[in-house]
């Protein structure tokens, strides 16, 4: 039994418990603190290690002369292939600039114009310059600014390197979580009036991803097991430009600054995929500044035509930055050069960069309303963990950082308001559950993980078919059973990372099943979900979100929920013409 007193690390009920210490979690924490309540940020890593740190290109928010909120909304909605909830998008574009200015007031070192105003750059799928940036380490600066700012609030406490194993839900109401202190291996109940899940995405369900090792979909799986549905999980974003082998992201900013995508013949192949005609200077919503889904699909087209180059780490095309010159590369995208030199042993000033599409972001997540509220009272989600949805079937680059800020703040405020009136959960002994240990006799965690990743790549990659997805349903169910008998080498308590890896694998298998089931159910092609057997968008049948609930046998059950349309009826996505 996990008893309060024996294990409760706080000895009290927290107003708001925030699981995850990235941009959404920390922004939520500040919102709670400013509302005058106490909160605890619990994360499996120290906050500055969170994956927000890897975001490079920028954060979109209307600030420039001539830009309008409606244009940002339209770009987002058309970029999302009309699967975004338009009320959420309208609210998002309205609040994004205010959040970005707030970050400036907290010290974020945004890049500047000569007169001292914040500078903005173009970005894929955006028809105006509205992407704020801090060189090409925007996420890093944003995360450190938020983390350092949290340190000034005495209302914010932290449980660093704790891992949540389950949510405590009673009568449809959240009461806290059960978590492991990774350092000691001890398990404790952490009681809270409200809980916000902000654990990021789960790109590690795929073998080749820009996502950090920690991106295992924990928050999504926790909510799903507790009865909250996961929404639009079939929409997985491939970013068109990852370095082969490592999967390290080469930011879209490289193309925004004028970089070209070329095939093995040096030909700017995007012109063959209805993305416009090549121009020397970057043109907004055209060619290399098209949306990520279309660019990644174009890569597959080149692969099929034999116009890619084979490397030991898969086929590649090339990103050409050479014409930008050393000065511009150093000034605007220095991290791109640093990464290429360190990890690819080349210099983009003189060399072509080999790139291939790489799993980058999950449009889907825990079903929430525009305040981050889930169907479970007192449980909220924000950032990549959540699906509001503002991203629809394909997120536009530079919308995710402001999403973390806008919805982190909103979830924080809503959770604080809820916690202000909610009854305190009665701390009590809760049943313990066995943790993975050395008693299993089956396969290694890493082998099971690798098989899951291959299954997902084969069945739920850039193009999918019903047959492949059907097969994957069976494979994943089988993997779930095998994972229960996994063999662990490590049965010790202190910093047992193998045990955490086993728990993470469980989370990934759950969300992998929702991805496959939702993809199988959606018999159309929209945005990042392309079915070779259903190549057309079908607004009659599928202008709707997928909701995956966990069924009684543990497998997902998928239903549909209509999309909210306010002012932009579904239309054709037009780029480059």
């Amino acid at each position, binding site marked *: 039994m996990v008893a309060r007193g024996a294990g409760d690390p706080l000895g009290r009920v927290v107003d708001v418990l925030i699981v995850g210490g990235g941009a959404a979690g920390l922004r939520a924490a500040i919102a709670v603190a400013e509302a005058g309540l106490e909160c605890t940020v619990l994360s499996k890593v120290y906050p500055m290690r969170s994956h927000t740190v*890897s975001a490079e290109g920028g954060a979109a928010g209307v600030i420039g002369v001539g830009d309008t909120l409606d244009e940002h909304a339209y770009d987002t909605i058309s970029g999302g292939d009309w699967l975004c909830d338009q009320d959420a998008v309208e609210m998002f574009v309205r609040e994004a600039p205010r959040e970005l200015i707030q970050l400036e007031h907290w010290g974020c*070192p945004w890049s500047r114009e000569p007169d001292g105003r914040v500078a903005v750059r173009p970005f894929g799928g955006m028809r105006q310059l509205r992407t704020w940036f801090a060189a090409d380490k925007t996420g890093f600066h944003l995360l450190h600014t938020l983390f350092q700012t949290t*340190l000034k609030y005495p209302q914010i406490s932290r449980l660093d390197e704790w891992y949540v194993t389950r949510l405590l839900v009673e009568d449809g109401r959240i009461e806290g979580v059960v978590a492991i202190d990774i350092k000691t291996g001890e398990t404790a109940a952490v009681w809270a009036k409200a809980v916000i899940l902000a654990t990021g995405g789960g790109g590690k369900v795929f073998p080749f991803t820009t996502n950090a090792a920690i991106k295992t979909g924990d928050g999504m799986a926790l909510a799903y097991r507790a009865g909250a549905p996961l929404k639009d999980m079939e929409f997985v974003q491939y970013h068109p430009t990852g370095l082969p082998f490592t999967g390290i992201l080469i930011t879209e900013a490289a193309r925004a600054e004028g970089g070209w995508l070329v095939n093995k013949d040096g030909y700017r192949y995007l012109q063959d995929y209805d993305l416009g005609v090549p121009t020397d200077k970057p043109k907004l919503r055209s060619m290399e500044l098209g949306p990520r889904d279309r660019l990644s699909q174009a890569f597959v087209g080149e692969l099929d035509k034999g116009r890619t180059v084979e490397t030991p780490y898969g086929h590649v095309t090339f990103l050409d930055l050479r014409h930008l010159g050393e000065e511009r590369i150093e000034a605007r995208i220095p991290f791109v050069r640093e990464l290429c030199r360190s990890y690819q042993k080349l210099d983009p000033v003189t060399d072509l960069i080999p790139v291939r599409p790489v799993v980058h972001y999950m449009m889907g997540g825990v079903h929430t309303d525009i305040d981050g509220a889930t169907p479970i009272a007192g449980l909220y989600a924000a950032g990549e963990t959540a699906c509001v949805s503002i991203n629809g079937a394909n997120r536009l680059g530079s919308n995710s950082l402001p999403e973390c800020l806008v919805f982190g703040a909103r979830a924080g405020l809503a959770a604080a308001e809820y916690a202000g009136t909610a009854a305190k959960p009665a701390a009590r002994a809760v049943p313990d559950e066995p943790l993975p240990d050395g008693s299993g006799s089956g396969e290694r965690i*890493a082998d099971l993980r690798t098989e899951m990743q291959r299954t997902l790549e084969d069945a739920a990659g850039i193009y999918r078919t019903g047959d492949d997805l059907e097969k994957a349903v069976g494979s994943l169910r089988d993997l779930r059973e095998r994972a229960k008998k996994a063999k662990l080498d490590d049965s010790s308590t202190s910093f047992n990372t193998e045990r955490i890896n086993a728990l993470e694998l469980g989370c990934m298998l759950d969300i992998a099943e929702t991805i496959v089931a939702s993809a199988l159910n959606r018999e159309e092609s929209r945005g990042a979900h392309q079915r070779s057997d259903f190549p057309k968008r079908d607004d009659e049948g599928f202008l709707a979100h997928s909701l995956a609930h966990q069924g009684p046998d543990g497998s997902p059950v998928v239903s549909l929920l209509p999309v909210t349309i306010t002012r932009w009826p579904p239309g054709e996505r037009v780029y480059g013409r």
Partner: protein
Amino acid sequence: MTVLEVSRYRPGIDAEPVFQRYEVPDNDDWAVLDGLNYVKDSVDGTLSFRWSCRMGICGSCGMTVNGEPRLTCGTFLADYDGVVRVEPLHGFPVIRDLVVDIEPFLEKLSSVSPWLIRSGEDPASEFAQTPAQLEAYKQYSMCINCMLCYSACPVYVLDPDFLGPAAIALAQRYNLDSRDEGDRFDVLSTDEGVWGCTFVGECTSACPKHVDPAEAIQRYKLTAAVRSVLPWVRL
């Protein structure tokens, strides 16, 4: 095959750290971290270490490689001849294997009030800050908190109370920010602050992000010295 010689310590099991040898396949593209992950995944699941982004920005995977503090995701096996020895970052208490206790470091970071300090209302729009004003503190904002500089610092190894390179650089990151009105004199101008530094410069050499903490410390010594004799002057 490449031989990794890895420091192991499991509290309650090992009395003190011992070295364990693992053979990993040769691969020119592998970082030291890839070698460790090969061991973890295929050979010995009990080996524990921190890592996450494997692109040199999260700051998790700092360890001692052949005696030097390094980010293991950006340090390549092919650059070493013979046995590669991997130990936890020197200068920090070891929790287990290659995992060190970073709580003291976080306390130091917090102690310099690393946030924008201002009085009065914020404007409705952004503060103006020219590229030159940004440049004045930019490099000190590039610290990823990997703690390699502490591991390299001969003062910190002898005196764990020394505020240390990253925390002082972070204080200067805010001191030199045109938007900041704060005063961090009391925490910086002490024997455990900038005056503890003997200017060896190892911190700057160790930094994988080209931050120059040594310069931050020397600059603040000048600021503090001037302020001691001319208290009304602000540098």
